[in-house]
């Protein structure tokens, strides 16, 4: 898009927001009169804006919408009232004059794709797909933006996102089988889903094997069903109602639950805690400070755990790669206990000891286990070395989203120090789940290094 078009569209957007100064409005009027192409673009922008407004009239709450904020700042009190729900107002305008009951469903229901096809009510839309997404028993290729009717969606691999007509958005991690039974209701047979439920879709319900039912009363939760039909639930935001075989409980944000047969175990955060995961996943990484001799890390190649309190910047132990300036081929890995669908933050320190040419460099990977699909693949490098003691490290932070109950974390030495005299030191490895809406939950912190 050219700069001129870009600037014009910004001006047009300001006009639609009521923010174009009075003196500029006449010029804008004349500009449109003189240029048919700009009129076409202006109409396009109006259509986009109106469709967005209409689509998200409820899910985007007015007080936090940019336009409402602008109106509020301008003090345009007359624009504020009566607009709590545009759709409701619109529907009432229709319903006040005619009986909508018989016609509304027809009006809202897509027409059949072909004249011979039976009318099928779409309950959801396929709103996202990963490049490797594959479906079993799909009658026809799944299309992004395509309507989905009631029935099973069997994602064999990859990830997919389904937006129910209620507005509930569900991310599926393959392999996953979800049966869509209504515009605000589904049944998970196997696999993992992450649900985001905006206000209009409150009451979104997911059922699981063995009579498990989760009703969302808030906004975000993760749910997995394993091959033994056991269900794991983590509430990230808001509130959900969990119904097991013999009990019903409400779980607030930060709570988790495991439903194993008839047994429902609920884990609630203690004082000062924001999230409590099931015990099996409460410590994703073990002995990340390396102070304990551990078999939790598997080591291969030219790497060893070294205890040297003079060189260590924390405690006395660290991983030392490429000892003796041999081939840099060391690998350190640990299987993490994760929750499928949960985003984790990986932090670690990497240092370059001595000043030889080249970079102390690690290939940092998070891989599904089993499967070996890449969830994270980054290169962390430190070019400035020093002989000062203790060694000064560089801090690295990355994020990945787990796809299953275990995830393989791997560090591979890819230092470029052929024939150079320096070592790569790795220490202070931490893996923590990311809780939404925490002050540190800022996308700009992803994949960065702090020196």
């Amino acid at each position, binding site marked *: 898009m050219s700069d001129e078009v870009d600037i014009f569209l910004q001006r047009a957007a300001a006009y639609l927001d009521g923010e174009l100064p*009075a003196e500029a409005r006449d010029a804008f*009027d004349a500009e449109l009169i003189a240029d048919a192409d700009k009129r076409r673009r202006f109409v396009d922008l109006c259509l986009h804006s*109106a469709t967005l407004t209409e689509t998200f009239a409820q899910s985007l709450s007015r007080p936090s919408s940019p336009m409402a904020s602008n109106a509020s700042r301008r003090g345009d009190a007359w624009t504020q009232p009566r*607009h709590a729900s545009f759709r409701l107002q*619109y529907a009432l305008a*229709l319903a006040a004059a005619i009986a909508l009951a018989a016609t509304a469903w*027809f009006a809202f229901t897509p027409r059949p794709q072909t004249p011979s096809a039976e009318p099928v009510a779409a309950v959801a839309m396929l709103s996202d797909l990963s490049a490797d997404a594959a479906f079993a028993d799909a009658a026809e290729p799944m299309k992004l933006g395509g309507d989905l009717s009631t029935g099973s969606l069997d994602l064999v691999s990859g990830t997919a996102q389904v937006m129910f007509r209620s507005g509930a958005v569900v991310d599926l991690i393959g392999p996953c089988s979800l049966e869509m039974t209504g515009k605000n209701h589904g049944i998970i047979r196997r696999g993992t889903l992450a649900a985001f439920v905006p206000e209009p879709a409150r009451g979104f319900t997911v059922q699981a094997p063995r009579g498990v039912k989760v009703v969302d009363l808030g906004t975000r939760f993760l749910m997995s069903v394993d091959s033994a039909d056991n269900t794991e639930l983590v509430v990230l935001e808001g509130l959900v109602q969990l119904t097991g075989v013999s009990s019903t409980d409400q779980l607030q944000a930060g709570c988790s639950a495991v439903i194993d047969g008839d047994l429902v175990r609920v884990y609630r955060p203690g004082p000062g805690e924001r999230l409590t995961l099931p015990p099996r996943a409460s410590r994703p990484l073990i002995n990340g400070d390396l102070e304990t001799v551990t078999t939790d890390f598997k080591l291969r190649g030219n790497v060893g755990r070294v205890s040297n309190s003079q060189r260590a910047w924390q405690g006395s132990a660290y991983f030392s790669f490429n000892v003796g300036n041999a081939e840099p081929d060391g690998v350190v890995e640990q299987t993490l206990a994760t929750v499928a669908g949960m985003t984790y933050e990986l932090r670690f320190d990497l240092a370059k000891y001595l000043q030889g040419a080249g970079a102390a460099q690690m290939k940092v990977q998070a891989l599904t286990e089993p499967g070996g699909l890449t969830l994270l693949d980054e290169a962390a490098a430190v070019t400035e070395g020093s002989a000062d003691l203790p060694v000064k490290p560089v801090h690295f932070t990355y994020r990945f989203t787990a796809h299953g109950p275990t995830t393989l974390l791997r560090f591979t030495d890819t230092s470029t120090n052929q024939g150079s005299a320096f070592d790569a030191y790795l220490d202070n490895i931490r893996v923590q789940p990311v809780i939404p809406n925490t002050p540190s939950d800022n996308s700009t912190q992803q994949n960065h290094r702090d020196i």
Partner: protein
Amino acid sequence: MAIEQDTLVRVLVKDRAKLLAYIWAIVSDVHTAEDVLSDVTVLAVKKREQITDEAHLAGWLRVVARTEALKALRTQHGRATPMSDRLIDLLDAEWARRDGDHSAVLAAKLNQRIKSVYVAISRVHRALGDCIRAHQAREAR
């Protein structure tokens, strides 16, 4: 012969975003546009007997929407001067060209997966909300 009630409702629902866009272009304020659209909807239902068919309805809605939009601007004290009649006429020609477009055709013409874009925008909005809350939390400490 008047337009069928089912047809009237279906068109009003199907084209509500397009009609909102048309009104919004004139009044340059989405809240005013929403009010006007509601008024136009009620008028369409009340005047159904005067509307003969779907093609007639499209033109009728635009004429009434234009009238109601300009009336709304006149009654709102202190609002900016409305778009010139000359420009509204020119834009009407552009809007008329869109009348045959269903949303899918429109999406194809715009070469965008519109609903997916909306989802992305929704997520951006959510992320922005998270960011603002995080900022507020930091300031509160």
